[in-house]
Structures are given as structure tokens and as C-alpha cells.
């Protein structure tokens, strides 16, 4: 009985749940068609008012996952539940879905149409979601959201994207996403193109939004430092798989998967005596790793076993952290 209540409570807490998400791309050459899974059996969930980080190197399937959640790509297998309703049901109510799930992208200069003024897309958002009709009311609303990110309506009105700086544009892009009062914000590497001083203010902004507006954020990044500063839970992705997932402190503090250990060791420390040791092997063929049988990390893994080359490891629960590695199996 108690058990059931607990399960229900956990269920209650899931804003979005991704189950066994798989995306298969095929590469066609003249005669052959090679299939590879850019995202393979990825499962995670995000609670309300939580920042969940999806971290990994470039080309590991983070962005594809985000695009599938936003509906820009079709998944090959698996299901996504948003507010407990499957995503296929939301497809028919796309506008309502997008009102609750908004996104911020990596490149602020690309996020705005260079041939239209920046305020244009703000007005579009307000009118398309029928949030307000009266022009004064609309301007007020836009100004309010822009103030939340440290801009004002006057600063963007009538300006083209080329006239604003990258930091301003990225903050404007966040402000636009906030117009609809979303419950989930998907941010795809939102700080990797802005300079270090702004990076902190944007990261702080996300933390504020979580605490004040109860906004959940899917924070996709390759930058473990900001992830460490910001997130509640983290998942490390490698070649389409989540290799380690759990509370932030556990995953980054005591990394269990050899790939996470490698990632953490590759963060440079501001200490002249500590130099990078030249033992980080960069694998030259991404595709080869994607097409590997067994554990995809096997060729680079320092603790590789015979088993790793044949069998795909299962997920094991170690100290509240899910790890996909044979080391932790019996």
C-alpha cells in the first residue's frame, strides 16, 4: 500500500517522461544503406521546477533528442509522455503543446530571421497564441518578459538581429520563449556561443526562472562546468546512449562510468602545475563507434573487459545512479 502511494507520488512528479527513445538515421551511398542509431533507448524524466542536464560531446545525440521532444523530428521507436499524455496525442494539439514547451537554441544570430526585425517574432508569438490582443497590452507583456532577462522593449524595437550583440540576442531569445508561460524550456547549448561574462548571467537567469516561475529546464550542454553550477540531475550521453544518470553530486562528484570519468578529467583546472596529460584518445571515426557491437566505449575504455566487446551493457543502479557499464554487473 505504502509502496503504491510512493510510486504514485513519483509518477505525479514527472512533467515529461521519455521512454526508450530511439532515432535511426540511414546513410545512403551508391549501393549500400547503413543504418545507425543516433539516439538509442534513451529514457529519462524531468520533474516540475527542475533543471535536468543532458551532457555529452558533440554528435552524441543530444540535439536529436531535443528535436524529437519539440516535434521537429519523428522518433523511430519509443514514446514521450508530456503531462502523462503520449506525444502522439499532443501532435493534434500542437499549438497547446508548444505553448507549454518552448525552446532556446545555440546560435543567437541564427535564432532570428536576419531580414526581419527582432520585435516581429515577439508580436507573432503573442498574437499566434492569442495571449493578448490590445496593442498596448501586448507591448507591456513583451516589455515585462524582456525586463526579466535584463533587456527592454525600447532596446529591440525596430532593430534587426545584426544590430544587436550576441548576448542581447540570446537573452531576447530566452525572453521570447517565456512569453507563453511555458512549463518546460528546452535549451540546446544556450551558452556555448556567448562569452564568459554573459554565460554566468544567463545561467543565473535559468536558476532564477526555476526558483521563481517553477519552470523546468532541459539543459543540453557539453560544458560540465555550467551544468555543475546549475542542474539538479544530470545524464551523460555517449554515442546515442545515456551512460550515466542521477543526482548531480553523485554523477560528477563520484563518476562511475569510465566515460564520465574521462569527461571530468578533461576539464582543465586553473592550476599551472597541473597539466593535461597526453593520454586522452580521440577516436577518429564517429560512425565506427556508432556501429559498434557491444559497449560503444569499449575501444577507448581503460578498464575494458572481453564482455564489453560483445554485449551491450544493461543499466545498473549504483547509489541512486543509473550506470550503463559491465563493471557494475554481477
Amino acid at each position, binding site marked *: 500500500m505504502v509502496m503504491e502511494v510512493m510510486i504514485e507520488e513519483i509518477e505525479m512528479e514527472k512533467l515529461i517522461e521519455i521512454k526508450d527513445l530511439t532515432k535511426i538515421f540511414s546513410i545512403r551511398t551508391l549501393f549500400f544503406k547503413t543504418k545507425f542509431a543516433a539516439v538509442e533507448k534513451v529514457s529519462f524524466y524531468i520533474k516540475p521546477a527542475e533543471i535536468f542536464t543532458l551532457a555529452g560531446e558533440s554528435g552524441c545525440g543530444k540535439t536529436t533528442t531535443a528535436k524529437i521532444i*519539440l516535434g*521537429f523530428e519523428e522518433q523511430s521507436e519509443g514514446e514521450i509522455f508530456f503531462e502523462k499524455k503520449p506525444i502522439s496525442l499532443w501532435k493534434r494539439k500542437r*499549438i497547446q503543446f*508548444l*505553448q507549454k514547451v*518552448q*525552446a532556446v*537554441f*545555440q*546560435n543567437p544570430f*541564427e*535564432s*532570428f*530571421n*536576419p*531580414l*526581419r526585425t527582432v520585435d516581429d*517574432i515577439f508580436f*507573432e*508569438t503573442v498574437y*499566434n*497564441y492569442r495571449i493578448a490582443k490590445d496593442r498596448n497590452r501586448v507591448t507591456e507583456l513583451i516589455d515585462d518578459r524582456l525586463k526579466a532577462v535584463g533587456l527592454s522593449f525600447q532596446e529591440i524595437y525596430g532593430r534587426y538581429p545584426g544590430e544587436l550583440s550576441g548576448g542581447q540576442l540570446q537573452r531576447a*531569445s530566452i525572453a*521570447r*520563449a517565456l512569453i507563453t508561460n511555458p512549463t518546460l524550456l528546452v535549451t540546446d547549448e544556450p551558452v556555448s556561443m556567448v562569452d564568459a561574462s554573459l554565460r554566468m548571467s544567463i545561467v543565473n537567469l535559468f536558476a532564477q526562472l526555476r526558483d521563481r516561475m517553477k519552470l523546468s529546464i532541459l539543459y543540453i550542454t557539453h560544458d560540465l562546468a555550467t551544468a555543475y553550477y546549475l542542474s539538479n540531475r544530470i545524464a551523460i550521453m555517449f554515442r546515442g546512449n545515456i551512460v550515466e544518470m542521477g543526482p548531480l553530486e553523485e554523477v560528477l562528484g563520484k563518476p562511475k562510468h569510465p566515460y564520465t570519468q574521462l569527461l571530468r578529467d578533461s576539464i582543465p583546472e586553473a592550476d599551472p602545475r597541473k597539466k593535461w596529460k597526453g593520454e586522452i584518445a580521440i577516436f577518429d571515426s564517429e560512425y565506427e563507434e556508432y556501429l559498434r557491437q557491444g559497449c560503444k566505449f569499449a575501444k577507448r575504455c581503460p578498464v575494458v573487459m572481453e564482455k564489453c566487446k560483445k554485449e551491450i551493457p544493461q543499466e545498473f543502479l549504483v547509489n541512486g545512479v543509473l550506470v550503463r557499464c559491465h563493471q557494475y554487473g554481477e
Partner: protein
Amino acid sequence: MRKSKSLFRDLTKDSRFTIAFVILLVLVSLAILSCFSPYHPQRMYQVPRGRPPSWTHPLGTNWLGQDVFWQLTFAVKNSLLIAIVASSISRVIAILVGMGAGYRGGVIDRILMTAGDTTMVLPILVVLILVSTILREWARYLTNLGLLLAFFSWAWDARVIRSQILSLREREFTFVAVLSGMRTIKLVLKQYLPHVLPVILSTLINNMSWAIGMEITLAYLGLGIDPTVPTIGTMLQTAIYRQALFLRLWWWLLTPIITGIFLFIALYWLSVVVSEYLDPRTRFQRIGIR
């Protein structure tokens, strides 16, 4: 307004643009002048025939008793009309097909592009000769000929527009536009149209000169529109058919030829200047030279 003014000033730095613009201005004012013509464009023997250029008849009169100057005004008007009908309709088809195929992709893309490729590989001149022979009565009218020409010229530009849309579709602002709740049609028209407008403009000019050339070719072969309706093509054809040179009425033959040459040069230079202006690479080159 200020923007379009400075754009115009930029363009007039190129002397080719200035010349082309002046020629076109003259031709357009000729076309407008046709509304005030004292003579009927098709009626014959209104003036003494075969007179050389003089003050009363600035370009002389022809063997049919028509004033060549006023005939020319009608000819320019009609030729421009055909060109505008053909190019604007083919542009509309090209925009719709190109954008639809580019943004939607998949089966729609394949169907539309196959249709386009099919019209592209047809030997246009042969088909136009055939069609205008078979549909002689139908093709006599200016607008119908324009439609016919439009049908054969949309496919190239639809491909160009499609390829532009294909690259725009993958850019992040497309996703942002979808997230802002824009529906497909609105998205394509508001977000993509400004990007493809330059291409549309420069192909529009090319298409106009192609349509005029095609009309002249058809008229020369005695096909296409009613030969008594003056266009640059029918004027030329009548002059040749009635042995203008043999009658020593050189002004009758030379008028449509020279007008045609000027029109083509003007349109060609205009399209070259516009596409050079719109292509950032050649723009940099020009800045470097100066």
C-alpha cells in the same frame, strides 16, 4: 523610403544600370503614350503610305498607311504586356511550387519537381510552334500567349526557389518561427519570402526578356498572336512579309529591330546589375576595385 533611395543611388553608380534604366523609362513612356494615339492600331490607310520620317510622321509611314511611330508605341505596350503576364504568372507558379516543394518535402516535393522537370526537358520552341498552330484562335490574344509562355518558364525558377527554401528550412530561425506558433503558410510567406525575393526579382527580368524574344520568334514564323495587332514581333514580321527593304522603306524595318535590341540590352544589363548587386561576392569585388 530612405532605404530604397540609397539603394537606387548605389545602383546608379553602375553606368550600365543608368543606361538600362533610361532606356526602359523611354520605352515605358512610349507604351503610356499609346493611350493618346490619334490613330487606330489595326486600321490601314489612315495616312499617306510609304513616307520617310518627317515632322508630321517622326518615324515615317509604312506601306499599309500606318504611322510607324504610333505603331511602335502600341508594339512596345503589347510586347511589355506579354512579358509581364508571362513573367508574373510564371513567378507566382514558381513561388508556390518552389516553396511548397521545398518546405513540405517528401511525396509533394517529388510530384512537383517531376512535373517541373517534365516541362523543362520539352523542346520549348517546337512545342510552342505546335501549340500555337493547333490553338491558333486561342493563342491570338496577348494574355493567352503570355499564359502559354508562363507555362513553359516556371520550372527553372521553381527549382532555384526550392533549393533556397531547403537551406532556409534547416536554419534555427525556422524552428523559432514554429515555436512562435506560426502556421506553415504564414511562416513561408513571412520568414522565407524576404530571402528569396532577390532571386525572384533577377529571374523575373530574365524571364521578361525571354518572353519578348519568344514572342518575336513566334511572330517571325507567322505564329502566335494576331499579326494585325502590333507587337515588336508582328511589326518585324509585317515589315519583312511586305518586302519593306525592297520598297526602300528602311525606317519600317529598322524601327522594331532597333527597339528590340535596345529592349534586350536594357533588360540584360538590368538583370546583370541586379544579380551582381545581390551577390555579396561580386559586391565585395566592386568595393575592392574602388
